[in-house]
């Protein structure tokens, strides 16, 4: 039946093979959190990897006010997770938040962003992308500056247009950076925790739809008894 093997952290641990893992995967809350986290990663990671590339290329040029633009993209990163969570929870408020306000001005129907099972994850994804774009943007900036200028010059002499330049010089030149950014973004997105518990008041969201893996981990660790300790430890290894 998969009874979780208890370990009170004080006596000697007992070797039980894979029992902890099987019990874990049978646990419905773990399954829910796994599903939620996967959904979150699938929605967030591509956006978080692709979106900052545009601004990075823009602020790479000698634009007037370039420092100001760079700061605009990176400043959200400087705000702590809890503050970001509180701010955006207010934005998403159906009555008092500016998102529904501007949506209705444009003619779109306002939503119950954080209290509807379908929208909650999407809303948190948008918040996370806004918050963390600056980090990847700085990495892209560094990567872009590593691409030798003479490659662009030679290609332009050969008559390459902007799209060709991007596809044949920028993208290949950014490959190591893209790899680093993609891997770290995916890893980081799996660890989503702080903004979710702030934005959903640690409730797991509508129908538990935003309960992430780390949330389940910490809740099991610090609220229930120590019997769950080995199980949730395994659960966090994802």
């Amino acid at each position, binding site marked *: 039946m998969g009874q979780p093997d208890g370990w009170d952290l004080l006596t000697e641990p007992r070797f039980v093979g894979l029992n902890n893992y099987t019990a874990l995967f049978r646990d419905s809350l773990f399954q829910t959190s796994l599903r939620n986290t996967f959904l979150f990663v699938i929605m967030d990671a591509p956006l978080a990897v692709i979106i900052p590339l*545009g*601004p990075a290329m*823009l*602020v790479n*040029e*000698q*634009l*007037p006010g370039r*420092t*100001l*633009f*760079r*700061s*605009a*993209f*990176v*400043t*959200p990163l*400087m*705000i*702590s*997770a*809890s*503050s970001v969570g*509180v*701010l*955006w929870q*207010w*934005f998403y408020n159906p009555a*008092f*938040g500016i998102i529904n*306000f501007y949506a209705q001005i444009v003619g779109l129907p306002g939503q119950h962003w954080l209290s509807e099972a379908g929208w909650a994850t999407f809303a948190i994804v948008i918040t996370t992308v*806004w918050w963390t774009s600056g980090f990847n943007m*700085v*990495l892209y*900036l*560094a*990567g872009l*500056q*590593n691409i030798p200028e003479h490659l662009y010059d030679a290609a332009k002499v050969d008559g390459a247009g902007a799209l060709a330049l991007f596809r044949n010089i920028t993208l290949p030149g950014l490959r*190591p*950076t893209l790899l*680093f950014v993609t891997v770290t973004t995916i*890893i*980081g997105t*799996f*660890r989503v*925790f*702080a903004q979710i518990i*702030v934005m959903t008041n640690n409730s797991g969201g509508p129908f538990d739809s935003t309960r992430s*893996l*780390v949330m389940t*981990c*910490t809740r099991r*660790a610090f609220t229930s008894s120590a019997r769950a*300790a080995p199980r*949730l*430890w395994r659960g*966090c*290894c994802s």
Partner: protein
Amino acid sequence: MASASMTATWSNRSLVSPKLVRLAPRFLIALLLAVLWATPVLWMVMTSLKPENQIVTLPPRWLPDHLSDFTLDNYIKIFTVPRGVDLIRSFLNSLLVAGTGTTLVVAVDALAAYALARLRFPGRDALFLIIVLSLIVPHEILLIPNYITVWRLDWLNSLTALIVPPVASGFGVFLLRQFFLSIPSELEDAARIDGCGRFRILWAIVLPLSGGAIATLAIFTFLYYWNDFTWSYIIVNSADVMTLPVALIQFRGDYFSEYGQLMSGAFVSALPAILIFLVAQRLIIRSITLTGLKG
């Protein structure tokens, strides 16, 4: 000479230079995106300057009723009104933790990186591989084992528990080792011939040359300590050990939220990080380039 350049100037003169034509759309798009990104931050700052009763309105408004209603009240209140959470104390705690932690991290990592880059000893490369592999492990896995360790060490609910555990991160070691490798070893050889010991070489030659990488590491580390929420949330129970991110949550009650003070608290806590970024952004980019992300 003079006539040739004058002719060139005349024929190239136009009302709108080609450079302007090329840059204008990029500038506009960058402006649009920057405004989009900055809007929530602007809202945050606006809110922090409004009187509390005009913040949550239906419908939401950017400006208060009268321009004269803008006030610094919220900023004053967060530091003076007692609410079981001392924001000044939390700010100082954060500063202490981040400052001490950063110094510790830079010191430890520089020593480790130099050893891995320049010294030869059995198992050196294996050790380096292990350190790099440790970067794959997400912090959340270590939450519980670290909590148990801290509990057994009797460090729970203390600043020590906030400062020490993150020192064991391989990120800085990796970063600095790559950079130390790129410093020509001829410099160190020359110093050795002159009789310098290893520590002297590290201190007098290698470190001064690594200003960029060390600054980068220091900034990233400081930001990590400053904004860390998860670990601090778990470890800290009492108000006198709280750090800023945890303290700011306390401003939100279950049935009401003092948004004005929340926003001013958030802005105040973001300020050090923003200032550090503004100062160091060129350094960071140049430093990363020097360590060679390419390949």
